[in-house]
Structures are given as C-alpha cells and as structure tokens.
C-alpha cells in the first residue's frame, strides 16, 4: 500500500503538478503503464460485452464500460480516464448500438448513446476528483508523518542535552519537558506536562510577572535569574532564558524556557560577599587599631620624651649647681639619675623605631645584601675600633625588599655579633649564605661570642627580652624583635642557634627575588 501510494505521488500528474523528484524516463514509463492498463481494462470490458452479446445479454455492456472507466481513472488519473471515455464511446457506438459494426448510430439509439457518453464523462470526472482529494489527503498525511519524524528527532536531541529545557504555551501550560528539566527539577515529563509551569516550579520573579511578560512580548525574549523549587522542595536559583515562539500571524504561541542551575554559584557568591563584608569590617577594625597605635606612638614620641628631658636637664643642673654641696654618694646618685634618663631615652627611641616598622610603607627594590652588610660593618667602626675582629663576608644574594629596613635588621644582627664577642681576644664574625627551602634565600650571621642558652631561645625575639644582664651587655632588648618584625614584613622568618659560651648563629630566610 505504502509503495503504491508513493508511486502515485511521484506520477502526480492528476493535480497537474510536476512530480517532486521523478526523472523524465520514469514519468513516461508511468504514463505508458497507465494508458496500457486503460487499454487492458477496456479490452476486458469489450470482450465481456461481446461475450454477453453472443449470449443475448444486451444490457451488461454499459456497466462494464463504466467499471473500466472508473478503474482506469482511479489508477491512471484524468488523462487515461478521458482516453477510456473516448475509446469506450467509440467501441460502444461500433459494437453495441444499432446499426452494429458501424460508427453510425440509429436515431432511436442516439439518446441512449448520448446518455452513455454523459454517464461515462460523469463517472470519469467524479472518479478523478475523488482521486485528487484522496491524493491530497495522502500527501498531507505523508508530510505530517515526515514532520512528526523531524520533530521527534529534534525533541530527542533536546532530550540529550543536560540543559533544562521546557516549552509552555501562553497559558503557562507545559507542553514539552526534556530530560534535563527532569534532572534539574525532579519532576518527570509525565508529571510536568499539562501543568502550569509557574505553579509546578513555584517561580519567584525578580520583578513583577507583568513586566517580565511585557518584555517577552515586546522583544521576543527575556533572560534573568529566577527562584524555583524542586520536586523535593529544595530551593533553586536558575538563570532562565525565554524565547517566544509566534505562529504565522505573529501571534504568540509558546515560550521555550531553558534554565541553568546557578544555585551553587549564587551560594558561593553570597559566601564571598559575606567574607568580603567580614574582611572589610576587620580591615576597618585593623585600620582603626593601627590609627590608635600610631596616635599612641606619636604621643609617646612627644610626651614621654619631654619629662625625661626635664629629669636629665635638672639633674645636670643639680650636678653643676650643687656639686660642691654634695658628698661622693650624692654625686653618685646624680650620675645614676642621669644614666637612668639616658637609658629611658634610648628605650623610647628603640620602641618607636620598632613600632615604625609596622607603620611605614615598605618600598620594594632589589637590594644587594652583600653591599648592605659592608655598609653596616663600616657604620659599626666606632664600636669595633681597637678590637681584633676577623670578618668573613661570603658571597651574599640579593633580596626584594625595603633597603632601609633590611639595613636596620642586618645592623642589629651584626652589632649583636660585635657586642657579644667583646669578651673574646679574637672575634670571628661570619656573614654568609646557605641553601634553604626551595624558593628561599637564607643568610646567617655567625659569631664566636658568649652565645646563649638554647632553653630560652623562644624568648630571644620578644620585645624587651634579654638573656644577659644589663651590666654585662648593654641593650634595650628590642633589637632582635625589630629584626623579626622586619623579616616578617618581607615574608621571611628568623631563627637562631647557639651553644652557651660557644657562639651563636642567627638565620634569616626570605623569598627568593
């Protein structure tokens, strides 16, 4: 049935339209077959008619020819039909109307012959219209089937994507629901189709639904973030893209909605926003406390120094003014007063320098540590004068950092080495570089001085921490704390190693430039 239908569609001459794909040869073969069949049907009708006549049956000829015409029209179309009508009229006139075997028709038989021809024409016409309708219907059905096939394929392709896609009509009724939508929302197609999309998914719009729809109708699409709810009740945030489909008259037909799940992204963004708010708050707090510290350091600088200066000044004046009135002990007390004031002055200066490390902006440049160490050694000449010191300054790397600060750090370490080797007849001070962790530069300052007890190494870098009595080695106890702070600001670390009485080594590790 299918094959024959197909062949007829290809012949296609009844509606006067060219066949869609057939070649010329195939068309003429079809024609020959239709006309051949017409001839065969007519021959059968004629034969049966003659057979009937021989047996005295004179009324069967008309229906036989009509049947032949109908069959011919049905299978052959209008052309062979007309041919059949013509041939059967001639055959009827020749064989069956009086006088027989002539094309003349007896006057009595003329109405009957006219009725025959008319009837034949009508049969032919009806059959051919009927056939045309039939053929149109078939063509429409085939087109529909083809379209369904294409659509089904498209739908199955849409089903393959993990994106959630569904279609809803203008009454918000879901008419298509892909696999991705099922995965995302937890409703399967059976549950979703025919339901109102906004009700099913409990859509939350950023603005009013009217605005969204107005934009959709105006521009043909809309996109934005929507709140949705899954089948299991969990909330979702999706980035939705809507596209409006219109029919031939530009009337809105349906909306294709694709949704991407951005819940996790939103959540992370929220998290980051929260963290940023926290960070901003903490930064503000830190800034505030830094400001406080700065104000504190500033007033320390000003206000603590003034009374100290007065103590020192008046002690001095007392010494000058009353020296003759004071006995030895009295004069000793005054010197102690002066020494105390001086020491306090130094403490304040060191403490301020220490606090300044945290407050001042560092300026980063490539600093040659070797050159810096040599400068430091020159600066310490006053202290090293008259001493026997063997300096070993090995090749030293360069560092990215603040030159002034790094110099302060090295000055502290080297002057410590000078100070704590004072009791040695011959001091050995080595400043060198060594291998550290990958990406790190390690510099050490080693001396053969008095060293320190490793039990107290954790106290070494604390502010105001001293491991020696002040009479033995002067100092404020801020130097190593300053070193640590400077190195920490350069992203490095410091540590120390010593044997009591056997010298000490201080290490600085900093990131390679």
């Amino acid at each position: 049935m299918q094959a024959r239908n197909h062949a007829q569609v290809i012949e296609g001459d009844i509606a006067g339209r060219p066949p869609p794909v057939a070649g010329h040869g195939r068309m003429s073969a079809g024609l020959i077959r239709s006309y051949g069949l017409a001839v065969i049907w007519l021959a059968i009708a004629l034969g049966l008619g003659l057979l009937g006549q021989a047996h005295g049956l004179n009324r069967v000829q008309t229906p036989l020819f009509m049947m032949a015409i109908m069959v011919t029209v049905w299978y052959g179309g209008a052309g062979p039909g007309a041919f059949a009508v013509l041939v059967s009229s001639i055959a009827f006139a020749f064989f069956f109307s009086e006088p027989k075997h002539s094309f003349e028709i007896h006057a009595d038989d003329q109405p009957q012959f006219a009725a025959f021809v008319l009837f034949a024409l009508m049969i032919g016409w009806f059959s051919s219209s009927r056939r045309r309708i039939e053929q149109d219907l078939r063509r429409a059905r085939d087109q529909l089937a083809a379209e369904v096939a294409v659509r089904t394929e498209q739908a199955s392709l849409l089903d393959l994507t993990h994106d959630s896609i569904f279609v809803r009509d203008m009454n918000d009724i879901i008419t298509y629901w892909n696999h991705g939508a099922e995965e995302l929302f937890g409703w399967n197609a059976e549950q979703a189709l025919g339901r109102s999309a906004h009700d099913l998914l409990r859509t939350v719009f950023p603005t009013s639904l009217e605005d969204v729809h107005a934009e959709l109708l105006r521009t043909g699409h809309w996109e934005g973030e929507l709140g949705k709810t899954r089948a299991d009740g969990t909330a979702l945030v999706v980035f939705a893209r809507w596209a409006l489909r219109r029919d031939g008259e530009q009337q809105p037909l349906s909306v294709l909605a694709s949704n991407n799940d951005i819940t996790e992204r939103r959540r992370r963004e929220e998290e980051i926003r929260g963290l940023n708010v926290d960070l901003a708050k903490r930064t503000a707090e830190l800034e505030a406390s830094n400001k406080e510290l700065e104000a504190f350091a500033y007033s320390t600088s000003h206000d603590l120094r003034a009374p100290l200066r007065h103590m020192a000044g008046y002690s001095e004046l007392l010494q000058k003014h009353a020296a003759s009135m004071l006995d030895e002990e009295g004069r000793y007390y005054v010197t102690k007063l002066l020494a105390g004031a001086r020491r306090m002055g130094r403490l304040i200066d060191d403490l301020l320098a220490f606090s300044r490390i945290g407050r001042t902006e560092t300026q980063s440049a490539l600093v040659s540590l070797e050159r810096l160490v040599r400068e430091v050694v020159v600066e310490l000449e006053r202290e090293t004068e008259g001493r026997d010191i063997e300096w070993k300054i090995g090749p030293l790397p360069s560092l990215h950092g603040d030159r002034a600060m790094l110099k302060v750090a090295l000055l502290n370490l080297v002057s410590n080495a000078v100070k704590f080797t004072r009791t040695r007849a011959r001091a050995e001070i080595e400043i060198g570089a060594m291998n550290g962790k990958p990406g790190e530069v390690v510099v050490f300052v080693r001396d053969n001085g008095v060293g320190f007890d490793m039990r107290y190494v954790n106290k070494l870098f604390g502010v105001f921490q001293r491991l020696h009595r002040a009479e033995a080695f002067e100092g404020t106890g801020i130097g190593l704390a300053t070193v640590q702070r400077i190195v920490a600001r350069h992203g490095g670390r410091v540590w120390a190693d010593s044997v009591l009485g056997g010298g000490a080594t201080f290490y600085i590790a900093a990131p390679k430039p």
Partner: protein
Amino acid sequence: MNEVMGRILLVEDDAEDIELTLKALGEYHLANEVVVVRDGEEALDYLYSRGVYKSRARGNPAVMLLDLKLPKVDGLEVLQAVRGNDTLRLIPVVVLTSSREERDMVASYKLGVNGYVVKPVDFHEFVNAIKELGVFWAVINEPPPGSVAKR
C-alpha cells in the same frame, strides 16, 4: 607688653622646656633676646601684632623656634599661616620638637621650614643644640629685612 621685643620668638607650651631653653640660651647671654609665647594662637597674635601684642614694637623676629605640639593652634598651622602671609613669610623658622616622626618632618619641610631640630634627651646635647641655634640665627645669620634689629 609693648616693651616686649626680641630677636628669638620661642613658641613652646612646656614650662620646663622653656626654662631649660632659656637657661641654655642664658649661657650665651641670649636669654633677654627671647620672646616666649605658649601656644600657636599667641604666636600668631604676636606675629600679627594683635590682641595683647597690639602695641608691641614693630618688626619680625630674626628666628622663630617653633614646637609642633601646641595647644589650640599647632605648630604646623602656625607655620602654614606664616608662610601664607606676605609680611611674615620671610621669617626663618626652626622647628624644635620632641618628634622624630617622619611625617612631621616631611610636613614641616613641605611648608618651607628652615631647620628641623629634635630636642635631645641628654642635657648636654640639648644645651649645645639650643646654643648653636640661638647663636647662628640671632647672631651669625643676617635676618631678612623687616626683622628686629640687633641691640
């Protein structure tokens, strides 16, 4: 107060500092050259010859020794006013302060200060510093025109 006159204007709020400064200057017989004002407002009153200094003898000091931390109007504000005024802008100004803070130093120099001296804690050094300042600015240096003449 109209007899108040001197080549050194000391702007200082701290009584002890004033006394020690005067003692230091006294060792070089410069104490009577000093006019002492106790805050920034008074300093400006003196310089503009207004308020209690309305009838003071004319002339700018040969040098102003200016503390930074002052009540009411601070040292930097005084400096700004002085440098912004046509008749006062030439006065040599030396900041004499306890502050070693870089920002104070930078701000002072930006405002065109002639010197910046951190008061030493040690009295010897303090005396030396004050003495040298006084001698240089009040004796050695030729002050700009319009300054109080040497006696």
